[in-house]
C-alpha cells in the first residue's frame, strides 16, 4: 500500500537525489513494494537501487524501506531485513490459517541433521571430522547432503591437512530462512557454567 493511503498528510519530504533531482517518493515506494512482493528472494540495497531512475544513497533507500515496513505494521504480512536484503513474509501468526489451505507441512529435520547444522553454525568452518569429534559418532554423507541441498550449508574450501577435508560453513540462505540478519542473531550458546549446574539442565530439556 502506498503512503498516500496510509498517511494522507504525507509527512515525508521528497527525497533529493545527489544531483538535486526530485524523486517521486510515492512512486518509488510503489515500485519497491511491487518488486519486493514479486521476488521470493530478498532484494539487496544494490538491487533496489536499480529500481530508481535517479541514483539514490543507500541511507535514503533504507529510509523508504523503513517507511514501507511501517505501513504494513497492522497487516497480515511484514517487511523484514534479513541477511541478504529485504523481503516480505506473512506474519508467523498467520501460518495456522495458511496451512488450512495446504495442510501438508514440510518435514522437520532429525536430531542428527540439526546437531550437525548447529555445530557448523557455531563452530564454522569445520570439517566432517570436527563434527564427528563433537558428536561422538560418524556423520553420514547424507546428513551433510541434506543440509547442502537445502542451501543451508556449503563447502568453502579444504583444510590443509592430510586428505584435504572439506570445510563447511553456513550460508546466507540459512539466515534468510530463519529470518535473521547475521550469525550473531543465532540463539546464544548455553554458558558452560550453566551446564555444570544440573538444575538448569533439567529445565532446558
Amino acid at each position: 500500500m502506498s503512503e498516500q493511503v496510509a498517511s494522507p498528510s504525507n509527512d515525508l519530504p521528497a527525497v533529493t537525489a545527489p544531483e538535486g533531482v526530485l524523486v517521486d517518493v510515492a512512486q518509488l515506494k510503489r515500485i519497491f513494494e511491487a518488486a519486493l512482493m514479486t521476488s521470493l528472494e530478498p532484494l539487496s540495497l544494490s538491487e533496489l537501487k536499480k529500481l530508481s531512475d535517479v541514483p539514490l544513497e543507500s541511507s535514503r533507500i533504507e529510509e523508504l524501506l523503513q517507511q514501507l515496513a511501517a505501513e504494513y505494521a497492522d497487516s497480515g504480512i511484514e517487511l523484514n531485513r534479513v541477511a541478504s536484503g529485504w523481503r516480505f513474509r506473512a506474519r508467523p501468526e498467520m501460518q495456522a490459517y495458511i496451512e488450512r489451505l495446504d495442510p501438508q507441512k514440510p518435514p522437520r529435520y532429525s536430531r542428527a541433521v540439526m546437531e550437525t547444522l548447529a555445530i557448523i553454525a557455531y563452530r564454522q568452518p569445520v570439517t566432517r571430522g570436527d563434527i564427528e569429534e563433537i558428536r561422538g559418532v560418524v556423520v553420514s554423507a547424507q546428513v551433510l547432503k541434506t543440509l547442502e541441498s537445502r542451501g543451508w550449508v556449503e563447502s568453502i574450501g579444504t583444510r590443509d591437512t592430510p586428505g584435504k577435508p572439506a570445510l563447511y560453513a553456513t550460508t546466507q540462505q540459512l539466515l534468510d530462512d530463519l529470518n535473521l540478519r547475521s550469525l550473531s542473531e543465532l540463539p546464544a550458546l548455553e554458558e558452560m557454567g550453566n551446564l555444570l549446574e544440573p538444575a538448569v539442565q533439567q529445565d532446558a530439556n
Partner: protein
Amino acid sequence: MSQAELQLIPRALIHGEPLLEMPSDLYIPPDALELVLETFQGPLDLLLYLIRKHNLDVLDIPMAQLTQQYMSYIELMQRNRLELAAEYLLMAAVLIEIKSRMLLPRPPKLGETEIDDPRAELMRRLLEYEQMKLAAQRLNDLPQAGRDFELVQVLIERTVIERLPSVSVEDLRIAWMTLLTRAKVNAHHKVRREELSVREQMTRLLRQLRHGEFEPFENLFDHAGGIPQLVVTFIAILELAKETLIEITQTETLGNIYVRTSRLTLE
C-alpha cells in the same frame, strides 16, 4: 529429555516414568529397545542422559556408577542382538580405562590435581556435546521459512522473455523425500532403481499403444537394450495388465499375443 527423544519412545513407556532406570529390573520390549537406541545420538548422548537422569556432578563424575550403568545398557543392547555402533564399544573402553586409572594411586602433585584428572577430557567432550545439543534444539525452535512462516510471492506478468523456474534433479529428490517422510507413504511406496525403470517402460508402452489398436506382443520389446531391458519391459507389461491399463489377448493356443490399451480413450 528432548522432544525428539520423548516422541520416539513408545508412549506407554514414557508415561510410566523412566524406562531407562536400571536395566536389570526393567523389561523393555525388544522393539522398543531399538527405538531407545535410535533415540540416542551416540555414546556421548547416552552418557549425558545417564548423568542428567541421575543428577550426577559433571565436575566430579562418579566413574564407578556411570560406567556400571553405561555397561548395563551396552549389555542390554547386545543381549537383544541390536547392532551396536562401534562408537558405543569404544566409549565403554574409555570409561573402563578412566575408572582404572582413578583406582591407581596418583603421585601427589601439588596444585595440578585437576589437570591430572583422567576424567577431564571426558568432561570436556560431554559439555561441548551438550552445548551443541542444546544449540540444535534452539536452532530447531527458530521459526523456519516454509515451516513456520510463508514468504510473500505475488504474481508478476512479464512481457519480455518469460523466465521459467529451473528445476534440478536435486529439487525433485527433495520433493519426493518430503513426500516419503509423510504419513504412510513410506510403507506403501518403496522406490528402487529397478522399479523406476519399470515405471519408465510402462509409460513408454502406453505411449506406443496410444493408437488404441492391437499391437503384436513382440513389437513392444526393444531388442537393442539387451536382456535386462527385455525383462524390465516384460515386468512393465505385467504391471500394466495388473493395473488393468492394457488388455492382452491370444486367440489360439501358442498363437500370436496381442496387446492394446484397455478401451483407453485418447484425448
